[in-house]
């Protein structure tokens, strides 16, 4: 069995083959998306959901808190971005900062309620709170625009010191989103390999022990909930820009369930890259199976059920098994190359 907490031979160095491959795909996507019959906008959507999924996995996979209401924070980010553009000023950085801030505050408040809950209780409470936000978004008509949401959210220019870039076209917006995603991935990779990230995983593995070796488990869970909500807020801000609107649908139980589904299918419980695979698989299924049949969600749902039954470690687990079979070399003990052994 593999686990998220396996020690890689390269420690926390970001220079892994997976990272290289991902960066390559991300940075070349605009050149091959259309030739293979897909479209630019899909790239933006996938990049945003990857960002959301990776931030979510901090909570879901790393610390083991199984939230089922995380769509709420994406939605809050989207609304905050839109409201800022419409009510305060048309500004990219301002909008994104407000999106992150709003989701962080909401996450901090909900985290305060739920962080001492465990197991199914935690999941139920996150569902309930997710619904609170979803419902508020529908009902606070004068602020959120009700069921239709906020329409006509602009894509503000990217201002970097003296330079200004127009990112209102899908082609250019993609580059902006891709770079934000790349920076976020590097940050998350550092975070999960830093002491703090290992502590998160220690809490998942054994909360009692973590407490008895001096960690304030509640505080760390709350922090993780909040940080994860902040990433969702960032993704939400970008999503509002991509969609040029913000609507309650992304906050529904359905969407919150879908993100859990993507993360699990990809193998978020066993690999940092799991959420990425899961998001890719979902969108490929949506656009490719969806091209053949209206009921693609039926087949995706069935596949998901089988996966939960047979191979809950997801696609990453499957890849690991296949690789081991080819490598033929059992990796029972991993020794980081630069460690003084037996010292």
């Amino acid at each position: 069995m593999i686990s998220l907490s396996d020690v890689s031979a390269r420690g926390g160095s970001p220079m892994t083959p997976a990272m290289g491959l991902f960066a390559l795909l991300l940075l070349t996507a605009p050149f091959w998306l259309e030739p293979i019959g897909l479209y630019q906008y899909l790239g933006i959507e996938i990049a945003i959901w990857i960002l959301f999924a990776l931030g979510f996995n901090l909570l879901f996979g790393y610390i083991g808190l199984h939230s089922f209401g995380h769509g709420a924070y994406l939605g809050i980010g989207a609304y905050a971005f839109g409201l800022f553009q419409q009510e305060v000023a048309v500004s990219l950085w301002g909008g994104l900062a407000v999106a992150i801030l709003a989701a962080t505050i909401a996450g901090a408040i909900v985290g305060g309620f739920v962080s001492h809950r465990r197991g199914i209780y935690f999941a139920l409470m996150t569902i309930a709170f997710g619904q609170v936000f979803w419902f508020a978004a529908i009902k606070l008509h004068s602020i959120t625009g009700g069921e239709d949401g906020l329409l006509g959210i602009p894509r503000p220019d990217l201002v970097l010191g003296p330079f200004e870039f127009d990112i209102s076209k899908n082609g250019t917006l993609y580059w902006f989103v891709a770079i934000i995603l790349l920076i976020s991935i590097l940050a998350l990779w550092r975070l999960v390999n830093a002491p703090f990230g290992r502590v998160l995983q220690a809490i998942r593995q054994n909360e009692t022990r973590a407490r008895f070796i001096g960690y304030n488990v509640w505080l760390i869970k709350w922090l993780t909930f909040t940080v994860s909500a902040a990433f969702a807020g960032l993704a939400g801000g970008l999503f509002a820009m991509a969609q040029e609107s913000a609507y309650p649908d992304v906050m529904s139980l359905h969407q919150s369930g879908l993100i859990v589904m993507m993360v699990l299918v990809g193998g978020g419980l066993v690999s940092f890259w799991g959420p990425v695979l899961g998001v890719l698989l979902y969108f490929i299924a949506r656009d490719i199976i969806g091209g053949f049949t209206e009921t693609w969600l039926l087949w995706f749902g069935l596949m998901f059920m089988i996966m939960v039954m047979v191979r809950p470690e997801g696609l990453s687990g499957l890849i690991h098994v296949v690789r081991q079979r080819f490598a033929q070399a059992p990796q029972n003990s991993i020794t980081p190359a630069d460690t003084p052994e037996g010292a």
Partner: protein
Amino acid sequence: MMELVPHIINGLTLGLLFALIALGFTLIVGVMEVINLAHGSLFALGAYFGLATIGGDWFGSTGLGAWWLSLPIGMRYVSAIIIGPLLAAGAGMIIEICLRPTYGKVPLYGLLLTFGAALVVEEVIRLVWGTGEQNLTVPQAINGAFLMGGLIFSKYKFFAAGFAMVAIGAVWFFLERTPYGAIIKAGSHDSEMVRALGYDLSKLRLLVFGFGASIAGLAGIILSPIWGLRPHVGLDVVIPAFLIIVIGGVGSFWGAVLAALLVGMSVGITGAYAPAWSMMSMYLLLIAVVGVRSRGLLGHKSALEN
């Protein structure tokens, strides 16, 4: 004060309806320790099966179908109330069989599997019955409206509330006063005991899930004339069920009933003064209760937390 009475009655009726939705859900959570996200889909499935029964869809356009449609609506309605839940129970049992590999693992997997099942059931409904709004006809005797205290009440709502009361009483009687109930309750806390008594635990789980699913299906048939019938109706109705379970305390039978009544009352009374906010009051109630008593009204420490 007097003008509040109809709203209180309205609220109580609504509360009973909510309780009926939450009933099967709380049974499965309490006994099987599985959050059945497909509960709403089973609710919808029961309603659609009921629809098919009343409309005689099973027979197609054969002579048998024509004969069936010539029968009085009351008779067809009663057979829908029987056949719908039975078929929903069958669907529930299939879900339970799929759930088996997840027992003994983290509760997350049960949650995810039932989420997948919910998607599948919803898609199947779209495929078979289409995406449009459907209407479940009810007999004349319980249809229509009457006036009370200047407010119009629907007869059917009262019938549904009465039905909910009977269902709650029957489930309670089954769990508390019959040997089967005792075994089911033992199974939820002590699977060793159930085995020692010579009962087959997997059969027990199958039956409990089927039972919970049939209550969901029943609620679907009873309630869809009030709330309408769409493929995603499951998601709409399962949300109050979640809130009710959390407010009442996970796994607590009377907690769920109490919470349902409270929610119904708060929705009904807010409806009198600020109709736009009536549903929101349910969420505020949740935050208030959970803020004071995070385990819910009648919740106790449970194995679900581990």
